[in-house]
């Protein structure tokens, strides 16, 4: 088994097993601890956490071959919809101790897991139990960030991302929007829904860089990577 750095992206690795299978991974900020039952592997006294693309849309995005990933060591990230921390923990690994992940989550039940299992052990993750539709409520905690990752399964996802970007994202900052067609309108055709959300982003000053469908990792899901106010 060996661990190799990803060809293009910082802080992301491939774990290659003897039988030839490749698994995505990040370097563990909290060696000895896993978050969602993921496997830990060690090489040259460095520990890595395997990243499951079936459970993490960001992992799926990378497996689908996204060309550019505007997320690197030292970045400050506003994560809307952090849930129990599956993806957020990998973001925390990537940005490292100098970076920061502000985790906004609405459900107390998910947040309980996020606080007790993840944020408690990671000094670069800040838990915020608030509704992402009201960014002014967490304005005094979050400063200016370079990246917003938005995965909130709400009908007005793009608008919420844009409102948060207006308040927190620096000019030229990056954003990721995971669009779940079913959450917006269960009867409309997914492609139409994706187009509508992307259009909202354009109107609010985002320049769309890449859009990828997440099949087979997620059905009727699309991830949009965009740059804000370029």
């Amino acid at each position, binding site marked *: 088994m060996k661990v190799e750095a990803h060809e293009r992206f910082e802080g992301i690795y491939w774990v290659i097993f003897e039988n030839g299978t490749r698994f995505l991974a990040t370097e563990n900020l909290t060696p000895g601890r896993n978050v969602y039952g993921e496997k830990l592997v060690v090489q040259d006294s460095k520990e890595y956490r395997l990243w499951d693309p079936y459970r993490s849309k960001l992992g799926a995005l990378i497996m689908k071959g996204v060309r550019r990933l505007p997320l690197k060591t030292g970045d400050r990230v506003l994560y809307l919809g952090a849930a129990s921390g599956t993806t957020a923990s990998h973001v925390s690994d990537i940005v490292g101790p100098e970076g920061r992940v502000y985790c906004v989550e609405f459900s107390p039940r998910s947040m309980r897991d996020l606080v007790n299992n993840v*944020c408690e052990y990671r000094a670069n993750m800040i838990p915020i139990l608030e509704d992402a539709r009201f960014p002014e409520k967490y304005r*005094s905690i979050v400063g*200016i960030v370079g990246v917003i990752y938005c995965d909130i399964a709400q009908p007005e996802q793009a608008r919420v991302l844009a409102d948060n970007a207006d308040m927190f994202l620096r000019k030229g900052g990056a954003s990721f929007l995971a669009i779940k067609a079913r959450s917006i309108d269960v009867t409309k055709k997914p492609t139409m829904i994706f187009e509508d959300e992307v259009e909202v982003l354009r109107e609010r000053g985002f320049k769309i860089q890449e859009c990828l469908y997440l099949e087979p990792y997620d059905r009727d899901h699309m991830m949009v990577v965009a740059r804000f106010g370029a």
Partner: protein
Amino acid sequence: MDARLLHLPMGVFAFKPDGTLLAKSLYPMDPEGAAARIGGLESGYPPEETMALIRELRGKGYKNFIVDSEALARSLKKAGIKATYAKAEAQGWLQSFFENPGRMAVELGFVEKEGDYHAFVHRLSIALTRFRIKKASERKDSLLVQGVAALEEIDRVANLLLSRIREWYGLHFPEVGKLIENPETYLKIVANLGHRKEFSPEKLRGFISSEARVEELNKASKESIGADLAEEDLVQIRKMAEVVLGLMGFRDSLESYISHMAEELAPNTSALVGPIICAKLIAKAGSLEKLSRMPSSTIQVLGAEKALFRSLRTGARPPKHGIIFQHPLVHQSPKAIRGKIARNLAGKLAIASRIDAYGGVYMGEKLREDLEKRLEDIKKGYGSAKARERRRGA
């Protein structure tokens, strides 16, 4: 003169409307203490530092306060101080703070270096979030929702285990299963009597009221085609029957616990449809507040999601009722008017749940009366000669 008050992680700050910093009162550099103050503010108990700052400012002639908490605005107004709630505007000092909180914290002397401020915010947000999670789980309707889920699960499990016992005991005495439909009676007989040679008319009368049935069972016990089982095998089955009886007993007490809670939590809604259906509606909606926000058309079909989305997707006929079907007013009326009844009932439920969620008077009786009057009209319309003729013609 106006003063803007803002609660930041470090303490309470006052600004002039143009953004210049007027005064401040810093909290001690203790994350848990700061979290407790912010949590207290959210619950309607502003920190000492806030009140001290307000006193200081009033002394300097500031009369009108624009604050960042609705709860605070309300309590200040009650105390006779002019106060309004408004979102923070990022200008001047505040703008600098929002852009680089760490640096401002160092400038103020709150911390020595930026990293310390970040560590402070990390621990503060963990403590504050834990406080908010606690507040969220203290809500009474969370207990109701869990209780209803437990009730539904117990029903499923009890049913499953009952079927198993019928099969298992049926190896020994299959005839009982056919003769005794009632689950509780069946289980009591299995648990108490066990082997069929223990069956006798006197003992059976303790469980069954019909003399004819007692006779049949007694006869069947002598002529059964089931296997003869050893005591050690029957013991297992009897123990299991006892367990299920215990579960069913608990189920009854759970149902009464839920009923009481529903009546206390949502008296108007309980008066309209009964506490159990009320509890199921709240559980399906997620909370009483969520239920109160739903339009009556949604309440009408709560619980019929499969049919609802299918009709939305394929254009098929939409469902007329969901959970509210369980109410006798709905399921006992002729099919043709169920839709009207469901719609009217849902309308009254929407009103009732709003009164319950936002702390209002009890008017359950009036709501019921209004509903019943309306239902009278519907039934009359249905039973009238004109309507019958219309239906015959169509």
